[in-house]
């Protein structure tokens, strides 16, 4: 719930920035994006117990040289399900942070990009069996494009792929998967 508030606040800031800098011609040096994602888990048990589902996220990009951006991203996914036999309630929360280098081609008003880098997943699963929580390293890759609507205001469509192989107790699982996202943002 707190994460949702944070993302909503970030979105508000982006919109405010858009209105403020709407008349400026962007140089694509710095950008902010926030929006919704839809998560398709890789792990079979994650899919069967919780299924696919929506999440939230945002990212920051900073141009460092010609077509190269530095990039940081965060996503939040939380879903409830039922244990496979007893049908008792269970819940999982995944917060992922990643970043790295992104290669971007811009032919205004359209930009396409491809990036990747290390990532970290903070997870928590709780149910009558117990609680599993921890952090697991992994990687993230992203492919997307954005279209500048007016001024610095953009609409962005991206697909992410993550992988986080963790083993908090006896079960080894990959908490990553594919995400499709649509975001709005602002470029400066």
């Amino acid at each position, binding site marked *: 719930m707190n994460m949702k508030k944070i993302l909503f606040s970030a979105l508000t800031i982006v919109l405010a920035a858009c209105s403020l800098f709407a008349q400026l011609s962007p140089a694509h040096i710095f950008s902010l994006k926030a929006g919704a994602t839809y998560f398709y888990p890789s792990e079979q048990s994650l899919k069967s117990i*919780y299924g696919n589902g929506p999440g939230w996220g945002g990212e920051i990009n900073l141009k460092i040289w010609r077509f190269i951006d530095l990039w940081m991203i965060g996503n939040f996914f939380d879903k409830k399900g039922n244990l*496979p036999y*007893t049908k008792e309630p269970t819940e999982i929360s995944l917060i992922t942070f990643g970043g790295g280098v992104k290669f971007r081609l811009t032919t205004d008003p359209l930009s396409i990009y491809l990036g990747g880098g290390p990532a970290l997943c903070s997870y928590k699963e709780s149910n009558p069996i117990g609680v*599993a929580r921890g952090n697991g390293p992994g990687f993230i890759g992203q492919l997307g494009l954005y279209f500048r609507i007016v001024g610095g205001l953009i609409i962005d469509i991206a697909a992410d792929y993550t992988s986080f192989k963790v083993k908090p*107790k006896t079960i080894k699982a990959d908490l990553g998967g594919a995400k499709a996202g649509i975001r709005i943002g602002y470029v400066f």
Partner: protein
Amino acid sequence: MACVAFGYVLMGVKWPVGSNVAYYVNANSTKVTDELAAVQSAAGTWSSVNPAGFRLTYQGSTAVTSYGRNSLNTICWENQGASSTLATTYTWFWGSTILENDIVFNDAQSWSTAGNDYDVETVALHEMGHVVGLDHSSTGIMMPYYEGIQRSLDSDARAGFIALYGGSGGGGGAKTDFPPSISITSPAPGANVSGTVTFAATASDDVGVDRVEFFVNSALAAKDPSPPYQYAWDTSSILNASYTLKAVAYDTIGQTAQAQITVFVIPHAPRNFSGVKKNNSSTLLEQYINVLTWEAHDKNQNIQGYRLYLQSGANGNLLQEFDAQTFTFLHKNVDKNKTYSYVLKAFDGSNREGDAAVLDVK
């Protein structure tokens, strides 16, 4: 003591007329193996004189190994050393009424039931004469010395008995066909039984036993014309309840004797006790569950619930108790690689546990 003209001697104490004296036997002789039958035969001989006046009825086995006042009439073998004593009868009485008799055979002596050494039945017949209330006399079975096998009553002993308890044929009179005697040897009175139960009796008669009939709740279940008199009573398809078992012995002229006990058929094992191991793991937390199910037995009544035991080695530990409407149990957090052995029993309103249903879940 009171001496009479017939050659018997009375001890001056006796059982009340009409007594049916129960006795228990510890067949613990180290010298013979069939001493119980010999003792029962001797008891039957005394009982046949006038069963209405006095009789001895075998009530089952006992663990006692010596005499002692415990309100039970017991017979056992005890090593009393190499003395000349073959057996001793101990009598407790109040006024002229006998309260208890114990007979102890000296196990140091050489006993036999086959005609050599000291004959168990002969000595038992003598000692039971004391139980009846006869003292030593100068003739017959009540002589204080062993003079060979004598497995029937002489006229003096019979006359002494009749003097104490009534009857006919005393004083060495004409031969009379006396009624048979019978006692139930299995199951024990008040026993909890299940499955196929051996319903057995011993019967004796001075002339011969024609047959023994076995009754369950007054219904004739079986007849057995020859010893060992027994009937395999199948309780697996009858209601768990109290049952009256009666055995009736008939002699060759139709005279009867009967013995009766009450037993309880315990609850039957639950039906279709089955189980399977299930994976109930979430994405990150592992859990395996043994899912156990069972059904009520249609011949069970007054079931209060079920008890589930988990076998560990030779022992079973109570895992869970259920009410009578519960027919499933999830044994959570089991080891996925381990085999679990379960025992399930129904119990009734008297907290009487029934037969076990056994199950292994791998």
